[in-house]
């Protein structure tokens, strides 16, 4: 089986193949970036990396200074030691799982992913192969996390907007400005009501449009005329005067963490909408069951032990890939 090393905060390194996954160190010849969220994009801005075309564009817009070589989904890249293919991960636009095949065995690295996929993504697709090593994120790795179907959540989102607009309240959705914000817009666009999005998210929207995901009637947030529009912003902006001139407003917090009731009082919001861009605990365990990989490596999780406990019971070998441990 392939050797997988933790590289501290620098991501994952496959030393035998010279491959880095969401990696920002100097020991890899080929680096693959799963998606454009900051915790997966190299901090070393001089690196040359591979990513899907949407991810490449998003990374550039968010200030990545290195070179991004576009690699289409399912377009095979061959190095002298391995064959690499990107598969859609369903997390945000352009998000990809990296499938590495070599003489030493294969490996599937999920990055962040969601299955069933977000509607504002290219979908979710697995390689048609038996997996040796499955490196999976496990952000919501507790059985208290089980998502409602997308259809139900989309309805809750649209209802929140229409009901509050009808009562004269400006609906505000707080969501991360890349991915969740655009998914909300994609869901809300059928209301045909004007939307305004916080500037940091606004500049990313055109990439969605360019890749075939129309986001409806939207413009960048303008304080003077935001009242009565559907507003989308990162939660942090609310504390910095976002729409503070609007007296009648209602706030919905959209995140997987909204599944915890305590978030409502912690954040003082009117509604919790547990819309996540990660898969839930049961989906994770089911996927492992379906893939039956030789080994599961768990990463990006506050609770690795609980996943291991369930995988143990399924007879699936697993280990925790601790990204935070200092690598060499």
């Amino acid at each position: 089986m392939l050797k997988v090393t933790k590289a501290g905060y620098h991501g994952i390194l496959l030393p035998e193949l010279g491959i880095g996954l969401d990696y920002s160190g100097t020991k890899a010849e080929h680096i693959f970036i799963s998606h454009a969220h900051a915790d997966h994009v190299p901090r070393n801005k001089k690196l040359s990396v591979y990513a899907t075309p949407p991810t490449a564009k998003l990374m550039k817009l968010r200030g990545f200074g290195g070179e991004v070589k576009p690699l289409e989904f399912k377009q095979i890249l061959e190095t002298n030691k391995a064959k690499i293919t990107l598969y859609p991960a369903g997390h945000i636009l352009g998000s990809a799982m990296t499938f590495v095949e070599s003489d030493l065995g294969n490996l599937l690295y999920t990055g962040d992913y969601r299955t069933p996929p977000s509607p504002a993504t290219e979908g979710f697709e697995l390689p048609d192969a038996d997996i040796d090593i499955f490196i999976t994120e496990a952000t919501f790795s507790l059985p208290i996390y089980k998502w409602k179907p997308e259809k139900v959540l989309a309805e809750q989102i649209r209802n929140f907007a229409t009901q509050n607009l009808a009562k004269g309240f400006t609906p505000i959705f707080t969501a991360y400005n890349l991915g969740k914000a655009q998914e909300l817009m994609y869901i809300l666009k059928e209301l045909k009501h004007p939307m305004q999005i916080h500037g940091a998210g606004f500049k990313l929207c055109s990439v969605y449009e360019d890749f075939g995901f129309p986001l409806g009637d939207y413009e960048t947030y303008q304080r003077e005329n935001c009242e009565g529009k559907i507003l989308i912003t990162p939660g942090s902006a609310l504390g910095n005067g976002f729409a503070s001139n609007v007296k009648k407003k209602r706030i919905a917090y959209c995140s997987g963490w909204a599944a915890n009731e305590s978030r409502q009082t912690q954040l003082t919001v009117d509604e919790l909408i547990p819309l996540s861009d990660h898969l839930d605990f049961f989906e994770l365990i089911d996927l492992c069951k379906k893939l039956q990989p030789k080994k599961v490596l768990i990463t990006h999780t506050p609770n690795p032990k609980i996943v291991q406990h369930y995988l143990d019971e399924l007879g699936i070998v697993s280990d925790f890939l601790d990204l935070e441990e200092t690598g060499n």
Partner: protein
Amino acid sequence: MSPQSVHITSFKLLAETAQSISSTRGNNAKIKLFVDYLSELESDKDVELATQFLSEGAFSSVSGKRASVGHRTIATLAADFCEIDYEKVFKPSKTASGSSSETIQRLFENIPEARAKWKGENLTLQEINEVFESLYITSKRDAKQQILLDTWKIMTPLEVKYFIRILGQGSLRIGFETKSVENAIAKTYSKELETVRYARMISGSIGKTAIMAKNDTLDEAAFKMFSPIAFMLASPIESRAVTNLSEYIAEEKFDGMRCQAHISDGRIELFSRDLNEITSSFPEIIEFFSGKQLPDLVLDGEICVFKDNTILPFQLLQKRMGVKKPSKKLLTEFPVLFISYDVLYKDEDPLFDDSLSVRRDKLEKISNKYSIPITSQMKIANQDDVEELFQRALDHGNEGLMLKRKDSVYEYGQRRKSWLKVKKPSGSLDTVMLYAHAGSGKRGGTYSDFTLGISVKDDDRYEEEFIPIGKAYGGYSDEELKKMNALIKDITLERFGPTLLLKPNLVIELEFEDIQINKRTKAKYTLRFPRFKAIRWDLSPSDADTLRDVERMYQQKIDNERLRQGKNPSFIF
């Protein structure tokens, strides 16, 4: 779920209403939700139960009943129900959600093994009440667990969540406390809020109050002799800013036992702070009052050991507390005196609504006419007066000072800032005994080491009612140890080898040298050299000091040390 499928008297509808209240922001909107719910209820019993469940718990506060089912018992039982590992799966889930009952709700919804077991059968409020009653009368742990399991199987997870919270007899944590329930009752039945509040105070019961409001009989909520009313309580002065001290008077705070005396027509009864009757323990007080041809009276005051013209320490009074028929020897050695500081009822008239000045005036007249001991009242104008009087009180061997607002009414059952207590900073805490540990060596065979806890019941950082603050293994006499061991048998909930988990019951006044921060403990504080100062048989766990008190004491200590910098600075520039 369509509204017509849920019957108005079902517990499910109450749970759904509570959930809506929880997720709605704004007090008025919350109250409206409960008003809408309450106005549909027809029978008195349902009105009583719905209001009681939401604001007092499974049992009415006056009943003094508890289900006595521990948090751990519920959590482990729920884990079994879901067929999951308690340590590996339940605990981290609870940590993530921050609420045990919410975790249970979500696991029951999510986990297929659990989902297969429950089927909501729309239990009524009265059926749920019967379940609570059966939990109360059942003393065996297995039997209690069986009742819980049987009930959970016919409830929806949302009902289970609220069932557990109501069972805890504390706040439901939906941002809807007693005041809001009173408000909703007033609105539902078009009554004045103050009338509702008064009726609740007098009756001590939100459920009975709701019935009276519904039936237009709130005026029947009147004070009755020989049914005690909740004591007015004092806030620590440190936690409240006092803007105008001259509006207060000062009295010395005795190191005694709070007591309410009801006197009418030769009949005399005494009630303790937790409203239990304690008449037979203090025959000399009865004798003292009965010789005086008194009018009908209710007096609020303090019982102290008084000998050779001196008030003796609380530790000596303890010899008398809980002793139903004190021996002649005990009576001679530790004679007690009732010192009054308030009069709540005289002749035909309740005096709660009179100001303290008016009540004091009446009390002084009674005292003069019948030679009844009352506290001395001292005028204060500023902080210097307080300091001086405080020192004098300490010199007298008393605990400190009470500051009382002259224009305040008797706020029964309330702890506001009309009464303030000035006590010596740090030194002792009223704690609740949580665990008993078997002693070794000389103390083998008895439980001699104890883990004591403070209250975090109203602290939303914690799930529990009490958390440990320290372990003590000294400061008690052999006789007290024997007595505690006898009681411990009755209040043991679970046994872990040499350690017993106890039902919160016994209040221990704990003395210590210092408070220190210790991040590894649940409370984040530890006490240095904790030891028993007194077993407070007169107090109940609801009187225990809170984590906030500990934090305040710690802060005060820090502040004090900073003040000293003035005279003896640790740095110069």
